[in-house]
């Protein structure tokens, strides 16, 4: 593209996006300063039909058109058509989609101006706006020890570079570790994940920091200094032999986070048998000693001298890193918000995650599916004594695809629900299973085949989301519509599984503030470019991986984990790293545009 | 004994026996020509049915372990062979399975493609020169006025020697090359360090191609197999590359590649090399690899040109092979 002769700009802001935080007047003023900009139209003072448009083009002898605004693509074809009719090259209809440069809360006007400036000069913003470079500190910080974080850490470690892997909980493994089997191949999550976890623990280049949280991040690309809170585990990770005597003796109980509360764990505990590090830890909230100052049972029985130190305090460390990879994952949708399904009120309405634990051999029922039942004290608990469900219903899209909750689709629910059906049939042959879905989204590799397979199995898969779940004489009564049959569908089951969606994790908000990376409307972190840079952020040296960027299945998270690592490794190999994209002032952009032709520019910045 | 005799090195006691054999092996001993004198000089033949008139009872009378070296040739076909084999084992220090038959079953071993009944049927009824309408077959005991005539029991299977008794060494060949015999014999006589028990002696570890003078290349792809008389052998290139199955690559050297020298493919009498468990299987595997086709039909077509794989690949070794005999 050489600098176009006669350009005109249409500012477009579609009716159906009611919020319009862009100061168009300012942009117009700015664009007028360019000599080759002949005309500018604002949305409202222009009749949006081809006739009018064609006339304008012919009348003003326009050969380049820039359509700028939010989702200008919605009208692009109108413009290309007009150009074609006017006998001009439709390829000269250029879009300035501001939504690609949305910085979360506001629009950075300078950035929008830069974009316009580039396009007016016939250049693409991405080519001109290449930030300056900093020297880079070879160490990398990975926040979050889920599969994405693990993958990223390992990738970097493989390149013989140092990684700090900071994990909030007492073990790495994240959500995946709590799953029983993974779709569509149904290989057991632990079996494929644990080797990687072990690897992380053994890899000399990875400094594993579990039970830690990032407190503050300062500095810029290539040299961030990060303050990390190291929670008191109160058990010495180095000396603990993981024998478990302490747990046996510990009198205090609390619901197990790992089992999503479907079982109890002691105050001194190991999150799960294959936890990494495979060491115990103390939960200050439930520890009797820490509340009353009495007990110390664990200390008494611990075979290792002063391995347990109940008085250990939290402390902070500060590390310096060149790159940061954010892989904080997701938090499950709170099913209580949808009262019509009675989660929280009805004991045998479970979330999908709870059910994963129920399926899992190391879960509360040793991998057998039992109903929740009341113990002597009347608490609802899972035991292997309890009855097994004969009829199970699985409701898709709980909290997803719903304007009252999360507008977006959570991407994995359809598949894991199908997986559930299969696993239930396997564990409870002859069980009656009903799946209620809206659209079956089995899009991944081998997913459709899996769906087909389940269809052949003895499961009723019904199009039509259940509307409500009520208790009727001890059983669960569902009412829904069978869309395809066009019938009301009423059903009484023993257990209901809610396929809950994924939401941005709590820490996302704080982190986005600390790291200065925007979040999109759905609350997940915003990548710098939807298509071209799904794992990078507008901050230099800060990358995203896994579900913190949006709902994802395991392979996609893993791919992103590696992808994020790529940039880090790249910068380390080069010894240099790009600064923040937003750090480039408008003047610089303008200078570059004026000074350089595209080719020189390319050469300089490669 | 005279005094000068006493300071002489004591001579070895040598036995040579033929089980189910053609006699070729015994002849191969004689084929040592003048070297035979050296043998006799070093060893007294104490039992050798074709050469000396010594009865079984004489052997039975001998003290155990009194014979130093026994060359047992021929396979074990009947109770007599078995009896003598066991007897000689008792009396002998070094029992050598001499020749292909004793080693692997040899040509008689081909009888294992059928059973006793078929053999009798063929031998005593069907053979063109036989007239036996009453279908009279040999029996182990037959009463006459003088008493009962006895015949050894005819076994259903042909067995290599080592399936009947424990064998010290094997000298392969049909028959073994006399030079090899001499080598082995002198080794024993000289009291040299003998190889571990159970090894094949009088043959090479490497297979025949090693000595074969024909030109060999890597392009061993076969579109059709030929039997030797079906093609004009160019007398230079490897038989396999001409499409003629030559057992050379899967057969121990030691014979001096005589057959190939005589422009006839190796037939494998020297048996498998140390690396191979089963004589025919390795060759089949190799030959299979050479078939130049990918789709089943073509492959079948090419294989058709191998008329009798079993007979071809196990000509000398069926009883000694993994399967040992045809399934009954």
């Amino acid at each position, binding site marked *: 593209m050489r600098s176009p002769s006669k350009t005109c700009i249409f500012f477009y802001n579609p009716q159906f996006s009611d919020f319009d935080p862009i100061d168009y007047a300012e942009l117009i003023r700015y664009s007028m300063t360019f000599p080759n900009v002949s005309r500018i139209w604002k949305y409202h003072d222009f009749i949006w039909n081809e006739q009018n448009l064609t006339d304008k083009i012919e009348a003003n002898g326009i050969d380049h058109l820039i359509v700028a605004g939010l989702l200008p693509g919605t009208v692009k074809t109108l413009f290309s058509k007009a150009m074609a009719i006017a006998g001009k090259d439709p390829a000269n209809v250029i879009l300035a989609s501001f939504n690609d440069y949305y910085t979360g809360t506001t629009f950075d006007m300078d950035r929008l101006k830069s974009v316009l400036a580039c396009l007016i000069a016939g250049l693409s913003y991405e080519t001109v706006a290449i930030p300056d470079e900093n020297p880079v500190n070879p160490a990398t910080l990975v926040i979050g020890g889920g599969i994405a974080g693990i993958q990223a850490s390992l990738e970097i470690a493989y390149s013989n570079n140092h990684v700090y892997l900071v994990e909030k909980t007492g073990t790495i493994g994240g959500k995946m570790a709590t799953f029983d089997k993974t779709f569509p191949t149904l290989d057991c999550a632990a079996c494929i994940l644990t080797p990687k976890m072990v690897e992380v623990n053994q890899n000399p280049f990875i400094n594993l920091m579990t039970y830690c949280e990032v407190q503050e991040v300062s500095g810029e690309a290539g040299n961030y200094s990060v303050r990390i809170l190291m929670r008191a585990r109160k058990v010495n990770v180095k000396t603990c032999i993981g024998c478990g005597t302490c747990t046996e003796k510990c009198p205090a109980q609390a619901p197990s986070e790992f089992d999503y509360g479907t079982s109890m764990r002691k105050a001194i505990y190991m999150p799960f048998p294959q936890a990494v590090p495979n060491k115990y830890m103390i939960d200050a909230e439930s520890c009797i000693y820490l509340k009353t100052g009495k007990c110390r049972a664990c200390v008494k029985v611990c075979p290792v001298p002063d391995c347990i130190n109940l008085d250990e305090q939290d402390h902070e460390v500060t590390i310096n890193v060149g790159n940061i990879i954010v892989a904080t994952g997701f938090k499950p949708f709170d099913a209580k918000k949808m009262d*019509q399904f009675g989660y929280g009120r009805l004991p045998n309405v479970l979330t999908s995650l709870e059910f994963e634990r129920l399926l899992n051999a190391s879960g509360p029922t040793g991998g057998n599916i039992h109903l929740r039942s009341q113990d002597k004290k009347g608490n609802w608990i899972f035991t292997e004594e309890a009855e097994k469900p004969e009829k199970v219903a699985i409701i898709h*899209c709980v909290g997803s*695809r*719903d*304007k*009252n909750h999360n507008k977006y689709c959570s991407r994995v629910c359809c598949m894991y629900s199908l997986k559930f059906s299969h696993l239930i049939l396997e564990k409870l042959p002859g069980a009656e299973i009903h799946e209620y879905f*809206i*659209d079956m989204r089995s899009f991944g590799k081998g997913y459709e085949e899996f769906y087909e397979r389940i269809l052949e199995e003895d499961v009723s898969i019904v*199009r*039509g*989301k*259940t*509307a*409500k779940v009520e208790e009727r004489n001890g059983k669960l009564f569902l*009412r*829904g*519509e*069978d*869309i*395809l*049959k*066009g*019938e*009301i*569908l009423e059903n009484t089951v023993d257990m209901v599984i809610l396929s809950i969606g994924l939401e941005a994790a709590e820490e996302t908000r704080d982190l986005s503030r600390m790291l200065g990376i925007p979040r999109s409307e759905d609350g997940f972190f915003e990548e710098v470019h939807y298509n071209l840079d799904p794992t990078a952020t507008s901050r230099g040296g800060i990358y995203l991986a896994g579900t913190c960027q949006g709902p994802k299945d395991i392979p996609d998270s893993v791919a992103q984990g590696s992808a994020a690592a790529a940039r880090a490794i790249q910068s380390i190999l080069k010894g240099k790293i790009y600064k923040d994209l937003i750090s480039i002032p408008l003047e610089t952009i303008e200078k570059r545009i004026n000074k350089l032709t595209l080719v020189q520019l390319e050469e300089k910045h490669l | 004994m005279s005094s000068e005799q006493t300071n002489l090195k004591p001579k070895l006691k040598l036995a040579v026996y033929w089980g189910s054999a053609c006699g070729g092996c015994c002849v191969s001993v004689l084929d040592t020509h003048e070297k035979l004198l050296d043998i006799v000089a070093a060893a007294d033949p104490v039992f050798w049915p074709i050469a000396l008139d010594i009865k079984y009872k004489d052997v039975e009378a001998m003290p155990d372990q009194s014979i130093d070296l026994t060359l047992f040739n021929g396979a074990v076909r009947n109770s007599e062979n078995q009896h003598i084999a066991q007897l000689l084992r008792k009396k002998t220090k070094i029992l050598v399975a001499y020749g292909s038959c004793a080693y692997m079953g040899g040509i008689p071993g081909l009888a294992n493609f059928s059973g006793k009944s078929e053999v009798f049927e063929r031998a005593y009824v069907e053979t063109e020169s036989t007239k036996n309408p009453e279908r009279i077959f040999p029996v182990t005991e037959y009463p006459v006025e003088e008493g009962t005539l006895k015949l050894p029991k005819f076994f259903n299977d042909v067995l290599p020697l080592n399936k009947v008794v424990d064998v010290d060494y094997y000298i392969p060949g049909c028959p073994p090359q006399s030079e090899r015999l001499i080598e082995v014999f002198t080794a024993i006589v000289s009291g040299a360090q003998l190889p571990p028990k159970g090894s094949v002696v009088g043959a090479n570890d490497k297979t025949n191609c090693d000595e074969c003078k024909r030109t060999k290349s890597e392009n061993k792809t076969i579109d059709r197999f030929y039997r030797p008389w079906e093609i004009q052998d160019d007398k230079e290139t490897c038989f396999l590359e001409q499409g003629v199955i030559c057992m050379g690559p899967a057969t121990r050297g030691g014979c001096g590649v005589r057959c190939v020298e005589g422009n006839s493919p190796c037939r494998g009498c020297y048996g498998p090399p140390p690396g191979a468990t089963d004589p025919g299987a390795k060759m089949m595997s190799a030959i299979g690899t050479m078939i130049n086709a990918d789709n089943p039909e073509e492959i079948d077509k090419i294989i058709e040109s191998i008329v009798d794989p079993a007979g071809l690949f196990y000509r000398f070794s069926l009883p000694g092979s993994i399967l040992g005999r045809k399934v009954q």
Partner: protein
Amino acid sequence: MSVRVHPELRNQLMQFGIGDWNACYHCGTCTAMCPLSEEGFLFPRKKIRLMQMGLKNEIESSVEPWLCYYCGDCTSTCPRDANPGELMMSLRRYLTSIYDWTGLSKKFYTSEVWEIGSILLIAVLVVIAFLIGLPAMGYSFTTELTSQGGVKINSFAPIHIIEAFDWAMAIVVGGLLISNILRMYYKIIWKHGHTKVTFWVHVREFWRLVFNFSVQPKFGKCDDKRYWFSHWFLMSGYTIMFIVVVVFLPWFQTEKILPPWHLQRALGYYATFGLLFGLLVAITGRMRRKDVKFYFSHVSDWLFLVMLTLTVITGILIHIFRIYGMPYATYIFYIIHMAVLVPMILIEVPFSKWSHLAYRPFAVYFQHLKTHAVPRKTKINSIN
């Protein structure tokens, strides 16, 4: 044979109310949420589907819109912006216009000018009738009071004339209404090629009409019973008043002041209270816009409420002024009363919102006719 889809129908439907039926992605929540949706008569989703696909005939032949009493559960649980409740409302408006052969209904619903215009016109005519018509006919009113000190109302509004007019109006309105109901019957039952309903069934099921008209049990099924009561109270009040005014006017519009416990007054008071209560609930609801059912208000909704309220209030005033012997006030308000009442009846009952008082119970009746319909010997063209 298969039916042709009509994308353009949406443009017509648009005029009958708010609602973006394309937003519906058919999760079925609304139908399942709805306490009134029952086997064979499923809504709202199925009806939304008809609207989406512009299946005109299928829409016209459906009773379901009338079976919906707009509790709003569907709308509040709808995961998209489809707003099923309001869509059903729009459908009812559309159907009313379809049943009406005069085509006025469509005009009234789709053009505010037409609706308000015609109301004003009639109002003016009424006023003229009183100010010019009656005097012209030689009627002159007196201001002297009765022995009880009440206003001599009949001197102003000669009972036989008013009664005659009432009857006339009743016949016109009734005629229109009946003809529309017949059209409704035709579209819902008759036109249905592949089923027929025996005469006996018509007779046997008739009680449902009466029952549903008087008790409105369906409305009762909606989650919030208050609305049912207020609506029923209003409806019963209205009906009583209607009957009394049209059929028993001489007995009702008396100059003699009867004791309060007298049936005439008792009925009057009951109706008044019923109307007032119902109106209060509806108006406050529509103003507060807290409840989904009241969230969206079409012009026709407001117009009707306003007019009815005016009618009631003027009615009350007339009553008071008459008893306390204030002739002028009485007469003036009598005119206003009529000026509001007449257009309300003429426009609302046959052509607009008020027609539902007839359509709803009939819909239930037809619904049951449908359920007892027996198939004719024609192939059914539907994949379910």
